[in-house]
């Protein structure tokens, strides 16, 4: 099988005879048997540590879950500085989770129904692999966009039935946050955990409007918007 790996500016082709293995197993084979300079991140092998997200043929995949085919092109994820080969600078995780204040502020130890807890089950499955971040087209226009993984995390805490400290979180996602999303949905199919950040962002928008925040996307109908009616 031929696998093409983007290494800096140069694509490199490796020929490996391994059948029915994951892409990660294949790369481990290359590193330990063929080329020890090939550089990538990995950890748990079981799709839970979030280390091994890459792009295969232009789509985000976890290497430990993906079964490669002949001719696959593997590149590092987008929107992050490439350090070497498939390893990128992961500082966006800390930066944007901080920006969105994606944490619990004030929580109670009261009883909560199973159904109520299930509201945040999917969002709290996030493994911070940054696949959604890589797929997001907004970053080419706004590098400060808080973005899909952090906004999903904000919604996870805002929607937590035990949480009572949501005000400053909602304030934190107003600029460079929920309104900067184009709702294109590119983040949804690439999530290995079946999370839909676009939906969570929509929920945050609804919540914002209910809390009295203006909706800057609704700039028609007699407002004082600088853009104004365009006819």
């Amino acid at each position, binding site marked *: 099988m031929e696998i093409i790996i983007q290494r800096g500016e140069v694509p490199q082709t490796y020929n490996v005879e391994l059948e029915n293995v994951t892409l990660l197993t294949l790369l481990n084979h290359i590193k330990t048997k063929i080329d020890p300079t090939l550089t990538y991140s990995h950890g*748990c092998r079981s*799709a839970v540590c979030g280390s091994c997200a890459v792009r295969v043929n232009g789509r985000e995949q976890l290497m430990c879950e993906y079964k490669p085919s002949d001719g696959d092109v593997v590149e590092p994820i987008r929107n992050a500085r490439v350090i*070497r080969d498939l390893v990128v600078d992961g500082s966006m995780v800390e930066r944007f989770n901080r920006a969105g204040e*994606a944490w619990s502020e004030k929580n109670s130890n009261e009883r909560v129904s199973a159904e109520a807890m299930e509201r945040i089950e999917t969002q709290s499955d996030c493994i911070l692999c940054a696949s959604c971040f890589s797929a997001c087209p907004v970053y080419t226009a706004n590098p400060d966009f808080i973005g899909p993984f952090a906004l999903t995390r904000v919604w996870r805490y805002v929607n937590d039935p035990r949480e009572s400290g949501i005000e400053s979180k909602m304030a934190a996602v107003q600029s460079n946050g929920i309104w900067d999303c184009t709702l294109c949905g590119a983040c949804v199919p690439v999530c290995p955990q079946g999370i839909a950040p676009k939906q969570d962002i929509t929920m945050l928008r609804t919540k914002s409007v209910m809390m009295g925040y203006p909706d800057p996307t609704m700039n028609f109908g007699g407002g004082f918007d600088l853009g104004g009616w365009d006819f």
Partner: protein
Amino acid sequence: MAKVLIIGSGGAGLVSALSAHEAGAEVVVVSKTLPTRSQTSMAQGGMNAVLDGDDSIADHIEDTLRSSAGLGDEKRIAFMCEKAPEAIEWCNRIGLPFSRDENGQIARRRLGGASAPRACYAQDYTGLKLLHTLYDQCLSAGIVFENERFLLNLIVDEATNRVLGATFLHIETGEVEEIRADAVIMASGGYGALYGKHSTNSVQATGDGLAAAVRAGAKLADMEFIQFHPTALKNSSILISESARGAGGYLLNANKERFTDELAPRDVVARAIHDEMAQSGAVYLDIRHLGENFIDHELPQERKLAQIYEGVDPVHELIPIKPAAHYSMGGIEVNETCMSSISGLFAVGECANHKTHGANRLGGNSLLELVVYGRHCGEEALKYALKHPVPDTPNLQLAKDTNFVRGVMYFTNQIDFYQKQEMLANIFYNNVGLVRDDMGLKAVLGAIRQMQKELPFMGPRDKSKVCNTNLVEFIEFGNKIELAEMIVVSAISRVESRGAHYRIDAPQRNDMMFGAHTITWKEDGVLCADFVK
């Protein structure tokens, strides 16, 4: 303000970071990767705690003590079990999304060796959700993270046996750095990755912290005790959670017959599987009767992983399994305050030996231990740091390690260390695994000593300064070899069977001779071992 340096960013590291911060310390957490990528994310089953009258703390203590097979410290186990309800409450308060039962209480399930259902869980993602919740809290608290730093050595003042800090390889730049602090907490995880493809662990679990502690003169305890999880996927050693059996899953042999009590303690079940595999050739986990609905809801990871790695759908098919190395009971020897034999060096989590698991850990007790002892350790480290501010002593460790990283590039590479690493994993699984004997252990010891001699003929073939993971993996291999020797010497010395350590040439437990902890350390490069009550 007193400064506490925490090495490792898994559950234990982050809990102690929050605890030290809360108590008023300046905290720096150093991670080999990124915090949410650590081994804790892989814990599935749950966290034990007695929350109501149907169960009792005395039973939790009793179960833990029984499983520890004489090597558990009753006082420390009692401390852990008594603080368990509070630990769960704390986790819930910081946002850990526990699953709930029909009364709205935190849901619990029964894991092997427990007399009642007492493992609080969040689906089969308990560790993942705990780790991420802790990380979010650390960001909220403004804790400083230094990521992608690989621990090289502890800095210790020899004259006073006092830790001063540690040195790290900044993986991205290739530079060696030092961080000084008033107290150091080692929270660097276990050494399961020594077993390579026969381990359920992350490839990162290479025991770097334990190896650095040994080089710095610290003592290790009970290194021969490595827990084998009964049910890992046969080809990849990926974990299938104990909750699959807790929920009613069966173990079947090649003839599709049940052959053991699925919910006995892990060492017992793992050995039963080992024997059955030798006899009938294969063992399967059967969860088909639990139904698709239940499996999708309670064991979603298991279903996905079995499909990817074994090509079977557990809803309709049997899952081929084998036992695999899972948890390091052995670790850095610590006292009640979590301090090691080096002043100012604390240890917590899987890299430490708190004597709470003894010879065999109960499922659901490791997450509990890291929360209870993580909180304790953070406080104790700060207390020490306040009382004993670190002296500004000159020390050559940084210079030494800078030279080492430079020099290792000139190692001759006549021997491929990846090949040796694979061999080490195989001979460990076969001879230092579930069933051991003197001859096999001594043969492995010979092989390890040979590899130690050969290290200068190995080395990284990648000469890049930037992000050289080949170099990191070579130093990790050196750490594995360092610990491998201590594990095997401990296993040779303990001529009896107890918990996870089973000697076919000495199948009985012998309290007279070995009812004590195996303590190992190095003096001037020479390995020493002793049994201490």
